[in-house]
């Protein structure tokens, strides 16, 4: 669909962002394969900290899990020293993907093709017939195993969350997130040990940025999400805020649970049903577990993570772009290791709101698909992002699209658009 408007006609260098700036989004950012290629290079392989996994997924030495950072697949493994390594899932010999299990425990990695074997640091330990057979064949004299390690990423972790980077950022994770985001991050990840409750994946035929826009857009939440609106889980008339880091690349939506009662705001929400009742109210039976008044905190962390805290529903949503018009969303639902059984039950029940079948997030998935369908063939058109003004600034309300503008202000700078 993008071909007619693709690279041959419009090389990235000739692309012109609309003069109005970040309050307009040209549709070609969602379809152009050349833009996608530049995103891979500058964003996903750029000097950013990308979410990889939770420490709790690989608690013991030798435990590993696969993850995907942009287009490149990695294996995160806990070394014998307890530190996590993130290795590209590509044998140094012929590029074969050497690890095909989603997770497990290993003492070394052996590529099944020619049995090149690596230690958990990614160092090449050895390979069959290195010295040939009966004086014939073998690797050249100057072959050194030290020259053929697996590609290894820079890794940082904070309070049980592992991040990695293809290009060593010149910022620590704490600097990268900035003080505002770090405060919200530490609210959920305080250092308390985590417990994984399970995984979900969905493939959405839409551009990966639409996922970020969705969670940076509190305007839609009060209109699209009948379920959230009706049961007061997220609504414009509640005390709420949108905050960003200095660059605008990260953002957080903060809200406080309200009542199922009609008022001036709900009158503008066709989604509001005053009389809708749950037959089993245990579905929404939240208990306060974090300091402060906020009951919903949705963080979007550049470039591949959404941290969800809605009531007692906690999840990492990892964005894995596949191409310009498709991405996978990987959900890791979690709680805390010391949760009593009734709290785990509560989290599992509330998880009905989220994931590929969520009362709320299935809406979002459908909305992104329909957005991509509307964008296809209309690459010359642009999106309008003016709710709450045209500037990028933190606001103590949610009648705004400011965080989308913040995202694109940063995006343009990184992409050179």
């Amino acid at each position: 669909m993008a071909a007619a408007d693709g690279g041959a006609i419009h090389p990235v260098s000739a692309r012109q962002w609309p003069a109005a700036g970040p309050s307009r989004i040209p549709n070609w950012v969602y379809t152009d394969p050349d833009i996608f290629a530049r995103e891979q290079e500058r964003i996903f392989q750029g000097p950013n900290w990308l979410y990889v996994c939770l420490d709790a997924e690989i608690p013991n030495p030798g435990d590993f899990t696969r993850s995907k950072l942009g287009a490149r697949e990695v294996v995160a493994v806990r070394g014998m020293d307890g530190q996590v390594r993130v290795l590209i899932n590509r044998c140094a010999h012929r590029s074969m993907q050497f690890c095909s299990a989603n997770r497990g425990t290993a003492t070394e990695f052996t590529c099944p093709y020619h049995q090149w074997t690596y230690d958990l640091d990614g160092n090449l330990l050895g390979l069959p017939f290195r010295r040939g057979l009966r004086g014939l064949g073998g690797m050249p004299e100057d072959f050194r195993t030290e020259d053929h390690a697996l590609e290894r990423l820079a890794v940082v972790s904070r309070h049980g969350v592992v991040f990695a980077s293809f290009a060593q950022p010149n910022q620590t994770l704490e600097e990268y997130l900035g003080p505002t985001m770090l405060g919200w991050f530490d609210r959920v990840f305080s250092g308390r040990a985590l417990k994984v409750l399970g995984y979900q994946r969905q493939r959405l035929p839409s551009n990966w940025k639409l996922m970020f826009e969705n969670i940076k857009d509190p305007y839609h939440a009060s209109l699209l999400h009948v379920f959230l609106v009706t049961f007061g889980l997220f609504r414009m008339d509640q005390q709420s805020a949108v905050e960003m880091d200095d660059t605008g690349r990260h953002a957080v939506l903060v809200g406080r649970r309200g009542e199922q009662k009609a008022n001036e705001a709900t009158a503008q929400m066709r989604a509001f049903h005053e009389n809708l009742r749950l037959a089993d109210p245990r579905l929404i039976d939240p208990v306060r577990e974090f300091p402060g008044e906020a009951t919903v905190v949705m963080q979007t962390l550049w470039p591949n993570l959404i941290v969800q805290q809605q009531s007692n529903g906690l999840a990492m949503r990892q964005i894995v772009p596949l191409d310009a018009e498709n991405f996978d969303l990987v959900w890791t639902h979690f709680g805390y290791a010391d949760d009593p059984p009734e709290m785990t039950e509560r989290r599992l029940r509330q998880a009905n709101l989220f994931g590929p079948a969520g009362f709320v997030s299935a809406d979002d998935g459908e909305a992104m698909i329909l957005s991509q369908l509307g964008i296809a063939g209309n690459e010359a058109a642009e999106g309008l992002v003016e709710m709450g003004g045209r500037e990028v600034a933190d606001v103590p309300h949610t009648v705004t699209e400011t965080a989308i503008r913040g995202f694109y202000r940063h995006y343009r700078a990184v992409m050179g658009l």
Partner: protein
Amino acid sequence: MIAAAPGLRASAALRARLADLYGAYDEALGEGQYERWPDFFTEACIYKITSRENYEAGLPIGLIYAESRAMLADRVAALRKTVLYAPRLMRNLTAGIVLRSIDADGMRLSASFAVFQTMLNDPSTVFLVGRYYDRVVDDNGALRFAERICVTDSTLVPTSLIFPL
């Protein structure tokens, strides 16, 4: 057709009642009659959809996780009144039903399912396939699911899961 595990005695009458239950379930879902769906379950039922990956690792999360018939009714009310989705038809096919055991807690059965999805103006596609792990009880004269765990072979849901399996 309901098969029985080796050595398990099951009368033709019982197998026919089970076949009726499974057949009616497929029919209700395939015809989009979701209002009929909660009534296939007991009041204190467990209904869960999860992937083989979670199931084998003992991870408890569900795509749908319900602990009562009322929660199933809430799911139907939500998909009728609150959830946005593009129009689609779903068709459930259940096969290879095996009665595995019978005890005081009811009958344990397993079966394979395939669910096909047809979006408006698109070809039909395989949506999810997997296995049901069921516990069926006689609930005041009607056979109902006291437990239905739907374990999908794929870890990946194509787009979104709007309707139950």
